[in-house]
């Protein structure tokens, strides 16, 4: 045990003396999240709302005035066909269209029920959600205002349409995606490089000649990166809560527990890579090509998996980050508990066990 601690201490020295790498590891997620956070706030403030008022009556005027009163948007009033609206979306700044049908006020007062259509450009899902929520709440306010003087309920039915990206994938997906990416980067890349470095420098020979157990070398190396990853996760979570206003809806302990499992998966992958290569460069290349690209492509964080052709969808099933990503989304954004994620957790656990077994079996106790 004392030997093991001496080794772990040495690994921490390595990590903390390599200032550049350390900076990269913590700077990268921070930069990504900060950039994303600011890009987001700017866009909503400058967006333009098109109001197509076919009704041109008291109710529609009142609602339009209230949207305008918020001061954040420029309102463009005109009568357009759906095709013109789409052209306006494509032209650029228009992010939302509100359409009042003929006889809006009349329907509302006499039938107690009327419709408004809201169309949003969901190619930027975050903006779309924010804007539609905003428009809907103004309409709801007006509805409540009407209710006060009357005994019969009025109902304005808002017809929401998200065009271009109906399921709104992409925005809240960002944080879970960054988490998966960063954990992979730290664990796979750093572990494999740090083990291969010992081989390259020749210190691995000295370690193998010593009575220190070769398998423990690997575990001792994994420990600093395990803690670094948890720290990184904490930084990302704090930033996403404070800067992006993306609250953690689910159980944070569960989130950490599952993340620890994913870190183990990544560490065993890093170990496997370090076993099959002898130079830091190739370890780095394999980690980047073999881990980061598939994570970007197949975890669903950038490109929706449902829209991929079947072969790619099948491939996506062997990418561990896909499962982790689903888990983080379920816990963080949907606030679901373990009962909703046990399948993914099981898959991750299975992958970890398999990877660890293979890499420990492959680990060379002798060099030749």
């Amino acid at each position: 045990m004392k030997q093991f601690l001496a080794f772990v201490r040495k690994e921490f020295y390595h990590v903390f003396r390599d200032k550049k790498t350390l900076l990269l590891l913590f700077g990268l997620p921070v930069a990504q999240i900060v950039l994303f956070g600011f890009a987001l706030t700017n866009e909503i403030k400058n967006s333009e709302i098109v109001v197509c008022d076919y009704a041109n009556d008291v109710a529609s005027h009142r609602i339009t005035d209230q949207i305008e009163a918020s001061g954040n948007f420029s309102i463009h009033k005109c009568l357009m066909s759906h095709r013109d609206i789409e052209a306006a979306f494509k032209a650029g700044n228009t992010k939302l269209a509100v359409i009042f049908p003929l006889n809006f006020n009349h329907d509302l007062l006499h039938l107690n029920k009327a419709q408004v259509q809201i169309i949003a450009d969901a190619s930027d899902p975050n903006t779309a959600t924010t804007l539609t929520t905003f428009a809907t709440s103004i309409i709801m306010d007006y509805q409540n205002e009407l209710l006060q003087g009357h005994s019969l309920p009025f109902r304005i039915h808002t017809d929401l349409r998200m065009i271009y990206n109906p399921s709104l994938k992409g925005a809240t997906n960002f944080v879970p995606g960054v988490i998966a990416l960063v954990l992979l980067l730290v664990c796979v890349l750093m572990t494999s490089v740090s083990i291969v470095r010992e081989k390259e420098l020749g210190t691995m020979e000295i370690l193998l000649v010593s009575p220190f157990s070769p398998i423990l070398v690997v575990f001792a190396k994994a420990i600093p990166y395990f803690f670094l990853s948890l720290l990184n996760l904490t930084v990302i979570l704090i930033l996403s809560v404070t800067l992006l206003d993306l609250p953690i809806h689910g159980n944070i302990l569960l989130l950490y527990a599952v993340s620890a499992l994913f870190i183990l998966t990544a560490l065993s992958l890093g170990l496997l890579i370090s076993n099959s290569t002898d130079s830091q460069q190739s370890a780095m290349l394999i980690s980047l090509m073999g881990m980061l690209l598939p994570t970007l492509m197949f975890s669903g964080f950038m490109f929706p998996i449902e829209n991929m052709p079947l072969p790619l969808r099948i491939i996506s099933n062997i990418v561990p980050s896909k499962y982790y990503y689903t888990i983080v989304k379920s816990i963080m954004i949907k606030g679901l508990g373990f009962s909703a994620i046990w399948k993914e957790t099981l898959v991750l656990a299975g992958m970890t066990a398999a990877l660890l077994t293979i890499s420990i079996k492959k680990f060379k106790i002798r060099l030749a």
Partner: protein
Amino acid sequence: MKEVVIKTDKLTKRFGDFIAANEISFEVYAGEIFGFLGANGAGKTTAMKMLCGLSAPSSGAATIAGFDIYKQTEQIKKRIGYMSQKFSLYEDLTVLENINFFGGIYGLSNRQLRLKREELIETLGMQQEAKQLVGSLPLGWKQKLAFSVAVVHEPKIVFLDEPTGGVDPVTRRQFWDLIYDTSDKGITIFVTTHYMDEAEYCNRISMMVDGVIKALDTPARLKEQFSAASMDEVFFELARGAKRKAD
């Protein structure tokens, strides 16, 4: 009768068709400085790696400190030290941290470690440099430190693989003083080299040519046997017939 600490019997290592070490048999006695000589590519490092447990022999038998190299590797590891051809300390750790680390993985107690640390810094005269990163030291100092670290756990045998490669003659001389001091403490030294002047410093030497041991005796008797004036001549005489190209 002298105590035998290394004994090999027809130890062989094949890489495919290539026989790196061919049925080598020799004995090394406790406390001696045993020189393992040969040209580049003669199979010295391969033979040494088999003895250290870094490389599995293809056939043959060997014991280190009385333990079998196939079955009792754990006992052997505790009793040997090893200094490889490549410089093998951590450059991003300080002198003291390196000593602590290697002492630590050999399981030295805190008290032993403290004594060793003081003794080592004292012997090497590195009081000023103790807290410097090893990467900032000159090569000669690094080599001396690497050697001291290889014997920090007081092994029975220490294997040195071309320890003086690339250092100047003065530092080499100092390095050998260090080897003699260690030998005086009763530690057996097994050293490979291709500097023939260093061969003269050894108690006994073996000459390896093309994976085979061609000669084994004290430097004086080898010179007599080949009626040569220096070890250089002995080496040329033996290596002339070599078929392998140096790598």
